[in-house]
């Protein structure tokens, strides 16, 4: 009787479950299956066990992509969030039209199409006559080929990435700032706390859930970095990652194996390795966050 009473509820869930199964569960299961096959998308797939995983892990490009990714994440996530946090504090200190103006200005890069952002930055980074080299030239610094010198390429990307992502994180942090009751700051001021102490002992602890979201989201986004380095290096499926693979990242390597070399089995395996890394990272972040929340 109870089961019959719930039938309409299950029926109402059915469209979602059907779409979820077709467009989410099936591709995952299919991808996982193909990761154990040698498959070029048209010829019959040949079972190769874990060979695809072994080949990827043993490949030079995978090691390079992972090292690049590790360095990139280690810098871009903390730097990006610090910049966003500072911008949010700055915008929060303004009132009325100025607050709106700065918020819109800092958010602009977020809505800029990636190809446009990359084109602008290719111009800024251009050797000899690029804007940045021109400014550096005033101080006697010789021209730097930011996007072609392997020692600067990663940092050039990080600067673009921080520029693009700071606005998005700033808006989220700003929303969090608005929710901090003003009387906390009044009490702190009465107790003689200076601005820095107010930020350290009120703002940051009160923003903890927001910062946790921003950090977690930043990690997940950074792990999937693709479009900006692809465009900055003028990559194609035949040639990607820039000089000596200095801007080669896992998603680019995965795409290249799939659509460049038609090794879809390897590309699927790559996807699952990357997914595993993201899941482990996210789980670790949540475990850490839960402990902090409990405290």
């Amino acid at each position, binding site marked *: 009787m109870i089961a019959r009473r719930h039938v309409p509820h299950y029926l109402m869930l059915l469209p979602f479950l059907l779409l979820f199964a077709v467009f989410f569960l099936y591709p995952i299961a299919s991808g996982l299956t193909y990761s154990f096959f040698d498959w070029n998308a048209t010829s019959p797939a040949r079972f190769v066990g874990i060979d695809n995983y072994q080949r990827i892990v043993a490949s030079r490009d995978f090691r390079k992509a992972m090292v690049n990714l590790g360095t990139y994440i280690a810098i871009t996530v903390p730097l990006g969030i610090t910049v966003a946090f500072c911008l949010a504090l700055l915008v929060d200190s303004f009132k009325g039209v100025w607050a709106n103006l700065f918020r819109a200005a800092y958010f602009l890069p977020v809505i800029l199409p990636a190809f446009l952002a990359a084109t602008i930055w290719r111009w800024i980074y*251009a050797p*000899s*006559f690029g804007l940045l080299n021109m400014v550096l030239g005033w101080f006697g610094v010789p021209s730097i080929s930011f996007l072609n010198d392997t020692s600067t390429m990663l940092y050039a990307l990080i600067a673009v990435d921080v520029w693009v992502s700071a606005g998005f994180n700033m808006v989220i942090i700003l929303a969090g700032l608005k929710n901090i009751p003003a009387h906390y700051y009044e009490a702190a001021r009465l107790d003689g706390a200076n601005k820095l102490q107010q930020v350290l002992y009120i703002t940051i602890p009160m923003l903890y859930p927001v910062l946790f979201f921003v950090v977690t989201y930043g990690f997940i986004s950074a792990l999937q970095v693709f479009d900006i380095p692809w465009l900055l290096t003028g990559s*194609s*499926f035949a040639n990607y990652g820039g000089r000596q*693979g200095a801007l080669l990242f896992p998603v680019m390597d995965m795409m290249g194996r799939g659509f460049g070399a038609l090794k879809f089995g390897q590309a699927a395996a790559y996807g699952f390795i990357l997914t595993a890394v993201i899941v482990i990272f996210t789980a670790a972040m949540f475990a850490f966050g839960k402990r902090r929340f409990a405290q």
Partner: protein
Amino acid sequence: MKIARLLASASVLAIAFSTGPARAADPVTLQYWVYSDFAQGDALKLQQEFIAEFEAAHPGVKIAISGKGDDDLTTGEVTGAASGNLPDVFMNGLAFGAQLVEAGALDNIYAKWMAMPQAFRDQFDKDAIASCTPKPDTMYCLPYTGFNEILFRNLTVLKAAGIDTTVPPKDWAEWFEQMKKVKAAGKFAMPDQTQVFNSVASTFSVVGPHEDWGIDFAAKKTKVKPESYAKALQLFVDMKPLSSGTSRNDQATKDLFITNQLAFHVIGPWVDPTYAQAAKDSGLKYDFVLVPGAKPGAHAGIKSYEILGVAPGKNAEIAWQFAAYVAEAKQMSRWAKLLSRYNANAAAMADPEVAKLPLIARSVEAVKYGLDVQPPYFVGAYPNCYNQIVTDNAAAVADGNETPAEGAASLVKELDACIAGD
């Protein structure tokens, strides 16, 4: 009895409406994928004219044209082949041909090609047809538009450097001397030729024999020879202090040329509309000449073709007819006249009205000397690592990390390992 008759009639009807070659009378919509610049402005208008003419001659046939970016074309065609959802007629570059064959995206059109009148087959450039025909009885594409690099010269920059612009440089030595004069005048001579695979190939073509370029797929080895390649690497070393540091494809490179900061740009004719517009808007003074070779009378530059492929399947016959229609001399003449772009239809290129167009005339001449970018076509796909190794090596030698001789020797080793899949 009645039921049996009904079933028999239903079977006949089912067979009649089932698969089989689409006849002109069958209502069918062909998907036609082109490069995005073919689906914009005047090019699109002309493509739509071709489509309208073909549709009028083939009642029931509709053509849906879609413009795609380079990578989108390849991914769409590969995934389309995998999912059975290929466009019926599509473009791509010759260099991606082997990949598309491997993916099962290209129909073998040899029988259809041979069934065409001799007069039709004779229209096409023989080398271009050979590129589409990797072995007997096998043909994977119709060569369509194409290019051979030419040397765009900024005349204002050259004159400011004290160079006589009335005669193009006769060989590399003279060209290099001009580059040095340009640099001495405070301008950039060339883009950085090490950054893009095609510009490395282009530089190799100045000094290297064509047979020393590409992959020997049977032997699984590169055809690059250290002796000839070292000479090309020396050119990168020589050009390094004279270059703008931007790649030949960068927007910044075109901007430098337009603003009279860059003297030479070796590239295909597709930049001409931009430069022609700048000539109108800002008085840019430029011309285009053949790329000088190592010796007087020799010329360099790379060449390639965009191809028209036909997908295997029930629409293959009518799709072939459409491909043959758009690639035919009459249409290709109109295309060339409108856009001043070289194509693989030799008969169209010989049309007096087309042949007199300066850019076409120069391209027709240049293509005789052109180096194929990734030969041999339709035999094997270049491994992913190949292009990257070539550009990294050229940059490393240009930066002085290796001598040209060392760089050439290490390149051959690395390319062989890449081809072998190590």
